[in-house]
């Protein structure tokens, strides 16, 4: 079965450090999403790409977060500098959207991030 691959699965680091999370979407999918899951806020969209172009990053704190898709097989989410309030599970999801086609999103296993 094709799946979305996220690395690392867990990350513990100290406040102020740079954190990079990576995602390999399912081959052939043209949309990539980054979601953050916390106890207080639940699941929220951070950023959304279609055909590698960023379409919506309104949920992302711009001063410290950045999301990119260097190529169709890799999406990255960076936090610099990290803060304790960034501790959460970060999910990447991919899907395919086209004319008359709107397939469900497939999720990776998430990165559990802990900022000390």
């Amino acid at each position, binding site marked *: 079965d094709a799946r979305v691959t996220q690395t690392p699965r867990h990350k513990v680091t100290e406040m102020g450090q740079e954190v990079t999370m990576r995602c390999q979407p399912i081959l052939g999918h043209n949309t990539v999403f980054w979601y953050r899951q916390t106890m207080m806020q639940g*699941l929220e*969209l951070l950023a959304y790409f279609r055909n590698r172009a960023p379409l919506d990053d309104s949920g992302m704190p711009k001063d410290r977060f950045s999301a990119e898709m260097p190529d169709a097989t890799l999406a990255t989410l960076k936090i610099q500098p990290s803060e304790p309030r960034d501790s959460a599970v970060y999910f990447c999801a991919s899907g395919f959207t086209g004319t008359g086609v709107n397939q*469900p999103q*497939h*999720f990776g296993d998430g990165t559990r991030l802990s900022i000390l």
Partner: protein
Amino acid sequence: AQTVTQSQPEMSVQEAETVTLSCTYDTSESDYYLFWYKQPPSRQMILVIRQEAYKQQNATENRFSVNFQKAAKSFSLKISDSQLGDAAMYFCAYRSGFPGANSKLTFGKGITLSVRP
């Protein structure tokens, strides 16, 4: 903006019994999709079932079925013959169906389902 509400934080069901998880949503759109995702302790997000708003027939997937009430903006999930492996957090989610619209998912807060042996 669309909102999804899951008002029950927790539910419990006896193994082999049936349980219904509630979800309501608010939207001004006429074309959209609704989903139920399951998140077990392993934290994977697993698609359980989906419903297209334009379809009147309720979706079913084996032991899982939905009761989609478009006028009432209600989308409940029924799990029949509950199994221990059904224990998880369940999220209701909404996505716009308009071409070119942001296809992000808007999630409810989730409901934790426990299954008693």
